[in-house]
Every structure is written in C-alpha cells, then in structure tokens.
C-alpha cells in the first residue's frame, strides 16, 4: 500500500540578486508502508530541500510545484494550510543535527510532549505516560523524561529526537542524516532502532545520507539524486550490483569496500550550479562515459528491471 507518493516535485529559491535557483527539478518517488528508502547524493543535490518540501517547511523565499500524495490526498495543493494539518501527525522528521536542537532549559519529556499537546492527542497524565512509552521504545528509561538535554549523551539525545518524531504516531518518518556525527557503535544502535521501528510500527521512512554502505544496510530501495533530479532509483542490491547510471557506479567506486580489491576513485569536479538552466545531462562534464547526445537533452528515463529506473543515454553493462 502506497503511503506517500511524490509526483513531479519542483522547488525554486529566490536569490538576493533576483535570479532563481531551481533546487529540485521534478522528482517522483513512492513509498510503501514499512518501506525504507535511501536518498543519496553529493552535498547540494537537493536531498534536504526535497524532504523539507515534503514537511512543508520550506523558507518563505521558496516556491514549490508538483504533488505530494499522502494516502492519495494531495497535501501540497493548499500550501502551508494543508501541510500543517499533516505535519508531525502524519509526516514527522528527524532533522539534521537533531541531537543539538533540544532546548537546553526544558526537560526532554516536556519537549516530546509539546507536539502531542499541540496536535491535541494527549495531555496531562496521559501525555506523560505516552512520553515514557516513546522513550522506552527508543531504549531510554521512562523516568528519564524529567532530565535536561545536557544530562543525555549524544546518542541518547539522537534517540530522544527520534522519540520526538514518533510522538504523534506518524505514517512517514523523514530522517535527514540521522547518524552523522555519532560514533560507529551509537550509529549502529540508531540504525537498528530505525529498522525495528519501521518493521514493528509499519512506518515508512526516507533516509537522507551520504553514506552508501549505510543505505545498503538499512534500506530496501535507494534513489540517487544529482543536480535536483533523481538519476537512478531501484532496490539497493540492484543499484550495487547492476548500476545503470555512471554517477551511481562512480559513487560506489568512490566508497572503500572491504571485500572488493580495487582502487577507490574520486569523481572530479563538483555538482553544477542550479541558478541557471542546464542543457543536456547535468552530469556530463564529470562523466567518464559521456557521448555526444548527452550535451543535447536531459536523458529519458529508462527501465532496466521493473522498479529500477535510470536517466542515462548510455547503456551500462556492469
């Protein structure tokens, strides 16, 4: 059952000099109940912007177009008014660096209760009890809800941030780099927790990250973003074993692999600026397989296997 479907989502930012930056240039995604989808790509590829758009948390300088379907209902259609009704109650988010986002002068518990009370789901004793349950769910003793953020370790704060995202029993969880800045052991705990939560609660999750091995470990499917578009999407094992897009292939080769005996490469150059129109494939200047056609138009979407789509003119034979 599809919980969340994104259709042709665009986001533009107004720049101070009057120009416009087309940060997200039409992405399509769909998410099943209990599914974990990884969103990977270099910095500045529009990953965070895309999920902020799904939360309706774009800044006033942004404008958006497209459809965001939550259980078939277009929640983007009415702008902030329709997004607000679903924010946190249906779609919740663990922000980048969420563990540092707690208010230092309020207890962890009171900060987790806030969205519940705002949404009118629980108050008083019931809210306290529910906060305790949520903390237990992420592996923190319920009594700790009266502690202050500085009394928690980084990993505990991150788990508390996840508990906060779960406060209103959302259907979709957006996690923006939930494990960066944590050490490997804590990282493993958090990932295990996220996997367990999606399995047990049927929560659908989109995880934004730079870390490819992490995606293949956690997610069933992954989407590779480049220059505001999805260049390839498919199951993680398909992407790893049969990458169709040169960018995907090069990204994997840029990651050290314990088992494969090969050199780690770097992809030269950096992603293009998005404040001017790009003609042809945006990856062409950096691609090792580019052909003449690449300079003419954006590549059409090609289906390699059912559910495995890529946007490249060149047939990859990996």
């Amino acid at each position, binding site marked *: 059952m599809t919980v969340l479907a994104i259709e*042709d989502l*665009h986001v*533009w930012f107004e720049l101070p000099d009057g120009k416009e930056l087309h940060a997200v240039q039409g992405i399509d995604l769909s998410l099943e109940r209990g599914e974990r989808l990884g969103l990977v790509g270099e910095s500045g590829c529009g990953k965070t912007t895309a999920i902020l758009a799904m939360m*309706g948390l*774009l*800044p*006033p*300088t*942004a*404008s*958006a*177009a*497209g459809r965001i379907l939550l259980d078939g209902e277009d929640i*983007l*259609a009415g*702008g*902030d008014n329709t997004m607000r009704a679903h924010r946190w109650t249906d779609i919740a988010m663990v922000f980048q660096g969420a563990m540092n986002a707690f208010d230092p002068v309020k207890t962890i518990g009171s900060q987790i209760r806030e969205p519940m009370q705002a949404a009118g789901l629980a108050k008083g004793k019931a809210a306290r009890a529910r906060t305790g349950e949520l903390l237990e769910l992420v592996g923190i003793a319920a009594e700790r809800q009266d502690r202050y953020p500085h009394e928690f370790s980084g990993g505990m704060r991150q788990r508390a941030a996840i508990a906060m995202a779960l406060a209103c029993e959302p259907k979709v969880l957006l996690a923006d780099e939930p494990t960066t800045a944590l050490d490997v052991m804590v990282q493993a705990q958090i990932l295990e927790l996220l996997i367990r939560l999606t399995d047990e609660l049927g929560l659908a999750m989109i995880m934004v990250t730079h870390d490819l091995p992490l995606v293949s470990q956690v997610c069933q499917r992954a989407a590779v973003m480049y220059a505001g578009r999805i260049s390839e999407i498919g199951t993680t094992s398909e992407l790893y074993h049969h990458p169709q897009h040169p960018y995907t292939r*090069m990204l994997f080769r840029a990651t050290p692999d314990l088992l494969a005996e090969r*050199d780690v*490469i*770097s*992809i*030269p*150059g*950096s*992603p*293009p*600026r998005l404040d*001017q129109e*790009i*003609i*042809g494939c945006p990856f062409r*200047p*950096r*691609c*090792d397989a580019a052909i003449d056609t690449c300079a*003419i*138009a*954006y590549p*059409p979407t090609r289906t390699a296997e059912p559910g495995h789509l890529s946007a490249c003119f060149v047939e990859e034979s990996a």
Partner: protein
Amino acid sequence: MSLIDAPMTPLNEVRKSPSRLRSLLSFLRKHPQAAIGFVILMFFVFVAIFGPYFAPYGEREQVGPIFGTPSSAHPLGLDDGGIDMLSLLIYGARVTLIVGFAGAVVAMVVGGAIGIISGYFGGKTDNALMRTTDYFLVLPDLVLMIVVASIWGRSLRNIIIIIGLIYWTFMARLIRSQVKVVRERAYVKRAQALGATHTRIIFKHVIPQIAPLLLAQTVLMVALAIFLETAISFLGLGDPSVTSWGKMIETAFSRSAISYGAWWAIAPPGIAVALVIMAFNMVGTAAEDSLNPRLKVSHLSRRHFRLRPLPDKEAPK
C-alpha cells in the same frame, strides 16, 4: 587515471562579490527609509562644510530691524539682533554636526574600548569596569551636564566631553555583551591555542566581528548627541562664542521671541534639529536591521513558501 583528467565542470565559476559602492547602493535601494535619511544627511553635511561660502549674510552682521519679519531678502526673517536667520541656520549646521559627531565618536571610543576590555577579559576586570559603568549610568544626565559646565566652563570642547561622558555607558554595555559572544567562538579559541596574544585576538578577531554593530550604534548615537547638544545649549550651558541650533533656540527664547510673535526665530532651528535627528535614526535603524537580521525574526513570521504551477514539460532539446 583518466578520470582525474576529466575537465572540471564549467558551470562552477565563482560568483564575484559586489564592490563596496555597489553594495551601499543596493542597500539604499532596499531600504527606502535609509535612502531618504541618507539624502537628508548628505544635504546637511554639504551645508555644514560649504555653508559659509554661500551664506547670504555674515554670522554677526546686523542687516535689519530686531525680529524683522520674513521677506524675500530674508526668507526666514531676522533674529533679536537683526541678524539674518537663514545665515545663522547655515553657520549653526557646522557646529551642531561637529558636536554631534565628535560626541558620538568620544562615546564610541571610550565605550567601545571599555566594552571590549570588559567583555574580553571578564572576571575581575569585567566586574570593576561594569560597576563603574553602572555608577555613570545612574548619574542624572542634566545634573551632570550642569555641574561639568559650571566647573569646567562653557566651551565646545566641554560639551563634547559631557556628551561622551553620558553616552559611553550605553555603548560599553552593548559592546561588552557582543564581545562575550564572539570570545566563545571556535576561531578565537583556535587563535588562543596557536598562541596569539590578547592584542592580536582583539584586533584580528574580535573587533572585525563587532565593527558593524559599533558603526550602526555610533550613527544612532550621533542623533542622541545632537539632541543633547541642543538641550545643553537651550539651558544656556553652551559655548557662548559659537552659533549652534540649540543656542539659536535659547537666544530667541530668552529674548522673548515668543511674546513678539517671532515664530521664525524658533521654528527653523527646531525643525532643522528634528530633521537631522530623524535622518540619523533612519539610517541607523536600517543599518542595524540589515546587520542584525535576527531583529526581524523572519523565521517566526507568518510568511510561507509559495506554490506555483508546474513548468511546461520541456520537449527534448
């Protein structure tokens, strides 16, 4: 490896940052009130500098009857000594602006220095300096003015010192709190770790960070200083040998211009003072807003992102 030799993407040229003049112009364009204030200021500064060359009559030249009414020869009439009001106003601009700027600069230098030392070193130094500041803060302005003027005598220099003495406390407190913030930044710690001296850290890392704030506050303080100068002169504590707008109001007042019905002897300098103070405030607040965008709390405002129709599906080019 051939990949490394692949051309860098040409789409990544570095955006040139705008020149200073250009950013000043775009600042004025975005803040119309600052532009208006700036134009008014430029006008008065021009008058203050070049006024004596085009003032129609002399500063002490009797050209007509006492409290002569405004006429085509004397658009603003004559004062109690038969001196042309327009000429007096032009000469007064120079004194008023000099006192305003000088007083604000004294306040900025003294207050800024004390604020920086107090905020940067903290501890006992901070305590001693801040208690001194508190002491000056509770002194009643008017009484201090009267006492200083009567002990040291009535001169332009003393007025500037009084203004500095009254206003440095505001500056010191403001700067101190900002320095305390900057001092805790990682790059200051890094400079300390690398063995930079306090002097180097203050001049290289702290002052550049607080300079915009210092500047904006100084502009606002000029307005206060001009107001205070007018007040001091009006109370008859100004320098008797020079013409300032405050002194013009005072003379007109004490020579009973009001009972003569000679409104032209009081209104023009009053309007001039009000205009200049307003102009400084307009420029100062706009500068403060743009230097400290948090004052606008835009992230808490009720504005949201906009929706727009989907772009046309481009046909493959």
